[in-house]
């Protein structure tokens, strides 16, 4: 049996390479070794010219995930990450499939886990939609000279003035921070999100892991989540926030629950989640009290009762095939906001097969839901928030043109904090200190700097959105919501155009 051990050896596609002429190892520098939390880099003793033992950095060729932490931290710029993927001679059995099988069969077996969103080759519809711009007949608007308004109000609106208007969330930018739970991410990330939201005038989402007591002062800019595990849910919790979001599913793992291993459940996490220290935090796949839409309605109204109808209640679902009728049902069940999360949405941990193969793109899901709600004449009743796979400000605006009132961004938030999308969030070894609560790693997030980075993220995207709006001759973003006339498809087939509700370029 032992003879076979190497049959399952994973051939690492990445490894750091050291330029020893630049490297300062002779003076005892070992920053890369301490920075690498995956244990890829070690020190190798080496005899110097004068016979003295020196320690040079050495790649173990076993654990590199190309997170780029060592590259960024090396004071001498002496490291780069080499990408040398395994090649198979077989065109069908590519290294991905072969490597995954070895991974499953060589060790304990089981489900392959992975972090962040889907990486598959499915079409990124954003790239096939182009904005319109003003030429001659219609003056474009210069955002530096003219007011350009991107404020949004989320919540249920009546059909006409005079009827009661529901509680609203005021967003100064049409972008919010998506749900990422305490436990999945570091408390410092939460604090930075909360502070940045307060500074800019938007909202962040606690995720399902409770709302830490030290952050409750930011409640006015916080959306708290009620998920199937009900972690940290209490009357106080609900009332501490600006809105409550019921999480039915998320794009990275539709139909799947969550699992925070017991070793990650430290004292602050156990307090915030309201579970014993060291126990596994299991979120079941469905809510055990929601087996259909009428049960959801009860939960929505239970929360509304608890919060005295003062704050909006959102329902978050993953973008799945039947998203349009589901959205209509949620609207009729009394939700004020519907969040739709596309299959590209990120996560801390998800089964690889689910991430890659379940759900549908947000562009199509959103458009279908927006159309359905409009056709049923109930579009006013709910706000639509889109998320999952947004990579830049133009993606935000394209989703708004397809019917979103606002968007959630998750992965861009982490990238703004340094993340190199290495997909190893579930290991708790995040070298940037983002998805870990380990002492020594967690401190790598400095709340001040992280807050500044997130404010910059929102402001720079806002500026870009204003530029795009100005070029289209739009001065208020509400004139763009669902405004498919401002988009044209390039290289999309008829079916895709129909679902997106846009015309092909040239028509």
């Amino acid at each position, binding site marked *: 049996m032992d003879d076979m051990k190497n049959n399952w050896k994973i051939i690492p596609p990445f490894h750091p390479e050291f330029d020893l002429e630049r490297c300062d190892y002779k003076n005892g520098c070992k920053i890369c070794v301490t920075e690498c939390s995956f244990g890829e880099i070690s020190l190798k003793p080496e005899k110097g010219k004068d016979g003295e033992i020196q320690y040079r950095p050495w790649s173990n060729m076993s654990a590199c995930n190309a997170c780029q932490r060592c590259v960024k931290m090396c004071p001498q710029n002496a490291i780069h990450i080499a990408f040398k993927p395994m090649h198979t001679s077989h065109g069908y059995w590519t290294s991905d499939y072969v490597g995954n099988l070895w991974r499953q069969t060589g060790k304990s077996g089981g489900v392959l886990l992975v972090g962040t969103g889907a990486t598959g080759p499915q079409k990124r519809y954003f790239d096939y939609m182009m904005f319109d711009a003003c030429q001659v007949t219609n003056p474009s608007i210069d955002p530096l000279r003219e007011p350009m*308004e991107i404020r949004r109000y989320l919540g249920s609106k009546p059909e006409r*003035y005079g009827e009661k208007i529901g509680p609203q969330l005021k967003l100064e930018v049409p972008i919010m921070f998506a749900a990422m739970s305490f436990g999945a991410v570091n408390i410092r990330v939460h604090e930075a999100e909360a502070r940045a939201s307060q500074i800019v005038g938007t909202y962040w989402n606690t995720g399902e892991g409770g709302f830490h007591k030290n952050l409750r002062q930011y409640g006015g800019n916080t959306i708290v989540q009620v998920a199937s595990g009900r972690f940290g849910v209490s009357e106080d919790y609900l009332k501490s926030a600006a809105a409550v979001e019921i999480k039915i599913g998320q794009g990275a793992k539709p139909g799947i629950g969550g699992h925070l291993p017991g070793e990650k459940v430290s004292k602050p996490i156990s307090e915030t989640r309201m579970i014993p220290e060291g126990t596994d935090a299991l979120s079941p796949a469905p809510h055990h009290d929601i087996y259909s839409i009428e049960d959801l309605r009860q939960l929505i109204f239970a929360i509304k009762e608890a919060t005295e109808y003062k704050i909006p209640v959102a329902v978050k679902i993953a973008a799945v095939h039947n998203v349009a009728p589901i959205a209509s049902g949620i609207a009729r069940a009394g939700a004020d906001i519907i969040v739709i999360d596309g299959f590209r949405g990120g996560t801390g941990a998800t089964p690889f097969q689910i991430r890659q193969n379940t759900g549908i793109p947000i562009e199509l899901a959103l458009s279908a839901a927006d159309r359905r709600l409009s056709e049923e004449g109930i579009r006013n009743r709910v706000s639509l928030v889109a998320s999952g796979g947004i990579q830049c400000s133009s993606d935000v605006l394209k989703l708004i043109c397809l019917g979103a009132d606002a968007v959630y961004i998750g992965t861009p938030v982490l990238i703004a904090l340094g993340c190199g999308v290495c997909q190893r969030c579930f290991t708790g070894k995040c070298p940037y200190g983002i998805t870990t609560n380990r002492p020594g790693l967690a401190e790598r997030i400095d709340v001040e700097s992280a807050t500044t980075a997130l404010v910059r993220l929102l402001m720079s995207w806002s500026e870009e959105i204003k530029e795009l709006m100005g070029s289209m*001759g739009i*001065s208020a973003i509400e*004139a763009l*919501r669902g405004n498919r006339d401002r988009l044209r498809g390039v290289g999309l087939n008829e079916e895709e155009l129909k679902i997106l509700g846009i015309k092909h370029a040239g028509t």
Partner: protein
Amino acid sequence: MCGIVGIINTDRKLIDGNYIREAIRIQRERGNGLGGGFAVYGAYPENKDKYAFHIMYEGSQNNPYISMVEDYIRSRMVIYHSEQIPVYPNDRIPRGPYFKRYFLKPLAEFLAPEQTEEDYIVEVVMAINKMEGAFVVSSGKNMGVFKGMGYPEDIADYFRIEDYRGYMWIAHNRFPTNTPGWWGGAHPFTILDKAVVHNGEITSYGTNKRWLEMYGYYCMLQTDTEVISYIYDKLTRGDKLPPKDACYVMAPSLWEDIDRTGDEKKKNLRQIYGPAIVNGPFGIVLSHSNGAIVLNDRNKLRPVVCAKAGNTFYASSEECSIRLLSPDVDNLWSPRGGEPVIIDFSVEDTQELRGRKAQWSLW
């Protein structure tokens, strides 16, 4: 680029179509001969209690769709009178589609419970517009629209609008940019007694259209202008907003100003009617039986000049049109972007203003 003119006599004194013809003719530079049109109020005093439908049929009077449309109308309304709208082809406009005028009333028993007569008419208009080969050019009481392909003065001659007399006239000279020039695409656009002439391009069209479709308004005429008449109709007739608020919805103030003044009503109007905001450059005159509204986009990207001479109110893209008709007006000004000028005849009926001219509100 287009030209618009409105002449409104608040004493409801009737004037013939020659005045408006001259006023829009002098703005010839603003059009390119691909569309012109007029709306007249007070044209059918003997039938003022009936809905006057002007319907345009593509092709000639042998168009087979005519009988289909008329069968449909007969199934929904009582036709009191119908006739061909007289036209006078000339060397500039040698031919055009076939126009018919109907005076109609729905029977009370046709209406669904809770449905007003006007809702019913809107339903009928939308249904006809969806039918092939026919377009309802106007559908209000005691008013009518004459429009087509050509310079407006030629359209005026084609229909001999000098034969009609009205207390309010609006006119349009078209320079089409985003939709092809065709007879149905000329302005004014109407729904019931509301007519709009519009200079501009509406960048919010897609949003507005989707919102209107939720309430049964279908934009069939391939142009952005009709959304303005529909939005106004939905807001004032459907949601019972006063004209001032309806204008505010289409061209609201900045959030910054709303925050500063703490005006809850404005905030709510903007929150609720976000999808009804009209973006892009526009200058419009929107007329209805009881008055008119002049409105510019918030950034004032299109010219509109207003003036008052005695009991006549003018609005125009160019001052020259006003000076031509009334060389010494009392008062001439250029309204600010987003600030509507509202002329409301209905206040005439109130005791203190009886016999006086309408209220001028600069708001």
